[in-house]
């Protein structure tokens, strides 16, 4: 997984963000995969798997709600934390940076709608 590499290495099953906890940063997967799960009627349901190069936890940048799902490592995963303050400072100077986030949000919205329709 890279001793001394950028970010933090999480072992298989380690929780990176927990549903219901406050959050003020987002994360980018640098290596490996993470899974997104949510408690649903006492049972855990997998909402998706996020792989290298993709980010999660971005909702914390735009609202002050609690984390909407739990994210944990699926196998060893190396994850980089992105500070809200640093990112918003940069978006203020370069609004095009927010486009990358919007693209991901748009894709997730489409995916959620498809999953809802299939259910």
């Amino acid at each position, binding site marked *: 997984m*890279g001793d*001394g*590499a*950028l*970010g*933090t290495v999480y072992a298989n099953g380690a929780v990176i963000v927990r549903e219901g906890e406050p959050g003020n940063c987002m994360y*980018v997967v*640098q*290596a490996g995969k993470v899974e997104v799960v949510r408690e649903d009627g006492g049972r855990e349901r997998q909402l998706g798997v996020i792989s*290298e*190069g993709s*980010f999660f936890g971005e909702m914390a940048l735009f609202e002050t709600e609690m984390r909407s799902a739990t994210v944990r490592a699926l196998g060893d995963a190396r994850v*980089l*934390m*992105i*500070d809200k303050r*640093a*990112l918003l*400072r*940069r978006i203020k*100077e*370069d609004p*095009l*940076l927010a486009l*990358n*986030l919007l693209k991901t949000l748009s894709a997730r919205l489409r995916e959620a709608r498809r999953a809802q329709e299939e259910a």
Partner: protein
Amino acid sequence: MPLRKVRRGLSPVGNLAAAGTSAQPVLSLEDGARVAVIGGGPAGSFFAHFLLKMAAEVGLGLSVDIWEPRSFSRSGPGGCNHCGGIVSESLVQILATEGINLPLDVAQRGIESYVVHMDVDSVRIASPGGERRIAALYRGTGPRTGEATPWESFDGFLQRMAINDGARVVRSLVSGIEWRDGLPHLLQADGAASPYELVCIASGVNSNFVGLLAQAGIEIDPPETMRTYICEFRSDPETIQQVLGDSMHVFLLDIPRLEFAALIPKGEFVTMCLLGEDVDEKLVHEFLHSPEVKRCFPVDSTPCVCTCSPLINIRGPKRPFADRIVLIGDSGVTRLYKDGIGAALRTAKAAATTAVFQGIAAEDFGRHYAPTCEAIAADNAIGKFMFTVTHAFKYARFSRRAIARMSRNEQASPGSARRLSSVLWNMFTGSAPYREILKDTLHPAFLTGMTWNLVLGARPRRRGSKVV
């Protein structure tokens, strides 16, 4: 619908200025336009990457040539861009958000803390987020060693990214620039001339290309520079890990003319960077043989395998652009002393955005690119003031004691505000604008804490030095 303006014609610089206001032609990039990037370092590759990416999004086909005679796959000076090789915390995060993740073989080490060495003490300042978010890397594939290293070049990685986006690398030296039929032509030593609609200059300050612009009648002053000194020491990785760990070591020493000094561990190498006024052999010797350096690094038993004295940009031109010409990165405006690669990304993206969405006339760059340069220059003015204050603190023993005491106490108290640690971290890493650092130092709690520690620092102290 694309936001680009429609070009009504071509016009040389002189004609454009004389064209009057009402019928002034608009210069913009049209489908099939040719763009030259002079210099294949980070600024040039970022520019090519963003230009091609944004052009593709608006359905604009561009032909981008990166003129770079060096190959970054070579070790030693031939493939090096002469730099300390630190990618700041904020830049690592921005790159990741842009979808640019540094591979393991490019980011040799993640830096997890800084150790500030002073004569009165050495204090370890941990990464605020508790994770490695600063990358130590090489611009080429490593220092001159005569053997292969397992690392990939950072500049080479970015250049490959630009090539994947569609840029073409021309391994040839540009010997000049000339205007013909209203277009800039790049000249080569054999007399060949290549016309371009737009020329982006990203050649840095260690080439004389910006100086050649005057010969083409382009009035852009070259940046003001300062000479630095970089030396690569080599030892076995275990020894380097044992003495320096995963920390960057910075030195606040009372040595005249020395502005900043750092030791950066990179596997089997240690990069030493010195910034100061007229860095010469005497200053290097004085630094290396200071007790603070000897305390943390065995200089005498570690051979120096590669040295250079590159220039850095300390003040950019007021107008780093003209019609069809834009200067970015170190050739234009960059951050003072820190985060030059971060400034390269900011100026490259701002210039590319202007070229794709607004136009390529001086007026377009003045309206849409200049604000980014002016923001960096204004922040540098604050940075200059901050470094002057740091100087004053560096030269008095009681103030050095105050810095050591306050930061040591903060580091020993997890969960505390750690105001001085945050200021030092941001000053050394370049992770925050100087404006924000100044704001942090004006907080009443910081001023009260610092005043109290200055009072205590004025009292004699009997403890020996140690890293906490």
